[in-house]
């Protein structure tokens, strides 16, 4: 069963190509993440899929229907959370939800919605008085008002503190557990790893990698990353060559802030690295290791860091 399917989507804004021949397929019941830095074309893509933007070229099918022929029905069956919507400040949580609920033929009751997003205690508060996390949960509640089959979330947790973020993840998980399909965009790799069955990494309007978070990380060919820097600053080229030949190292990347090694067996590679550096008589100014993540996948694919783009 198809949740979302699009082929060769193109969207231009003047000379800028925001989406450049993008195709993807999301099955029912799946949680799919569009991942990428700001400006990669994630929002444009999701808004085309939501039927809010007209693509310049390409086909879109949602739940087996098209926007051209079945807009009314589709609107009833999907729930949308937009990136920058500010709900009316002077309405209470309850009134806002009542308003959104009134747009749909069927849907959840007010009490259910409040319980799902854990805003029961804020029922009578004005939207303007809510915290960022509460506002975002309300926005998701509005998207859930019509008990949708498919939920679109555009950067649902951007700018939220870790606790609010976890609360939202929990809401999304429960929606999925009840059989819902989710398509979300994010530039947090951690979010994608924890939440999504499959992710598509986007850059410059294209998908540059697609798969489960595990597959993508495995494609690095290693499971750990070692970052280090030397007190002298730069690293001699011959040392880079030696590192490349070292056992367990699958990739070496040098940047302005140091060197990053992708390694298979950390317990072997790390002592070897330390011994080598001592033998060369150079001193470390920084040494960190972490499990390989989607961040490293993005860096490996584009040569750029995800966060600072």
């Amino acid at each position, binding site marked *: 069963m198809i949740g979302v399917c699009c082929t060769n989507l193109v969207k231009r804004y003047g000379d800028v190509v925001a989406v450049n021949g993008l195709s993807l397929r999301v099955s029912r019941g799946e949680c799919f993440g569009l991942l990428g830095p700001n400006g990669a074309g994630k929002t444009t893509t999701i808004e085309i899929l939501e039927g809010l933007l007209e693509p310049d070229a390409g086909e879109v099918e949602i739940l087996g229907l098209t926007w051209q022929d079945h807009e009314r029905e589709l609107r009833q069956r999907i729930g949308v959370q937009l990136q920058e919507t500010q709900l009316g400040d002077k309405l209470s949580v309850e009134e806002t939800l009542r308003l959104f609920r009134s747009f749909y033929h069927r849907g959840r009751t007010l009490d259910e919605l409040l319980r799902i997003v854990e805003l029961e205690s804020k029922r009578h508060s004005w939207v303007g008085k809510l915290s960022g996390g509460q506002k975002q949960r309300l926005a998701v509640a*509005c998207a859930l008002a019509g008990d949708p089959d498919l939920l679109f979330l555009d950067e649902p947790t951007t700018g939220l503190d870790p606790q609010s973020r976890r609360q939202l993840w929990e809401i999304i998980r429960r929606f999925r557990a009840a059989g819902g399909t989710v398509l979300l965009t994010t530039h947090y790799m951690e979010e994608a790893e924890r939440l999504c069955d499959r992710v598509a990494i986007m850059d410059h309007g294209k998908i540059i990698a697609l798969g489960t978070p595990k597959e993508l990380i495995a494609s690095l060919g290693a499971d750990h990353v070692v970052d280090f820097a030397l007190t002298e600053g730069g690293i001699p080229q011959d040392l880079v060559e030696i590192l490349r030949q070292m056992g367990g190292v699958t990739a070496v990347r040098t940047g302005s802030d140091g060197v990053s090694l992708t390694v298979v067996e950390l317990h072997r590679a790390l002592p070897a690295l330390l011994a080598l550096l001592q033998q060369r008589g150079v001193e470390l100014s920084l040494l960190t290791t972490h499990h390989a993540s989607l961040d490293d996948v993005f860096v490996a694919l584009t040569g750029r860091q995800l966060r600072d783009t």
Partner: protein
Amino acid sequence: MYQLALSRMREFYREPEAVFWVFGFPIVLAFALGLAFRNTGPGKLHVGVLAGPGDSAVAVVLDSSPRLDATVLDSATARLRLRTGRVALIVIPRDPVIYRYDSTRTESGLARLEVDEVLQRSRGRKDLVAVRDDRAVAPGSRYIDFLIPGLLGMNLLGSGIWGVGFSVVQARQRKLLKRYMATPMRRSHYLLSFILSRLVFLIVEVVALVGFGWLLFGVAVRGSFASLAGITILGSFSFAGLGLLVASRAKTIEGVSGLMNLVMLPMWILSGTFFSYARFPDAMIPFVKALPLTALNDALRAVMIDGAAITGLGMPLAIVAAWGAASFVIALKIFRWR
């Protein structure tokens, strides 16, 4: 639809400033203007008598007139008071008596006539023709009677354009319009919700302003309340349409504010809110009459002052309706939903 209209209203009455500008401001204005132009008779004219031989005798004679208030002044004070308008005229009791005044001031002209008459009579002049005054102070012919319907019209225009314009543009700016587009909400319902909520506030506005005029100044509605209701509803619909048109494209509050002023200011001045538009040159009158606020004000005055029936007001009401319908249709066509 009902929920949309309801939230529209809630958002409005929870904005204390908006409530003041829509309901409070016209009442304050009516109160101030009503006080300034109240009909308690023309009031006393203040005149000065220059200090000199026989000054107090002249002052006593002048003071005996119910319309004059005379004071003896030295020459420096007299000059200052005349210049600043505190006295309308200075009498210099010599032979011949001199009246010093500014002939361009209406008040001074009146004082000249009154002072002269009182002085001449005190020296024995007799009236040759018998006369009797018949003063028009009946409700309906005072300035406040003219003003209240005008303020009502202005208020309908202002709240229609402000109420609708600001909330539409704000919703657009906050991406709320786009969010609504992502729901099954019907676009026509969104626009109609404004008109519906306007209708509810209309009742409050009309009752407040007409009630105020009646309580404080005895401004009565001579025609039927049904006619008044019909006209205000039509006017309110029409201006809500105009408000939608003004807000149909604007992306920022600043942008729409400019447009609103562009629409409203000329009408405030031209459409006979504070003074009759008959003061404008004849060539402008047909143009002025074609404005919706002019037509509405005319209809309101016809009902409130002359007691006309709504059936006799086809022309102005047709103008109001045409403006409303045209702007609603155009607004719907060019409305920017994103």
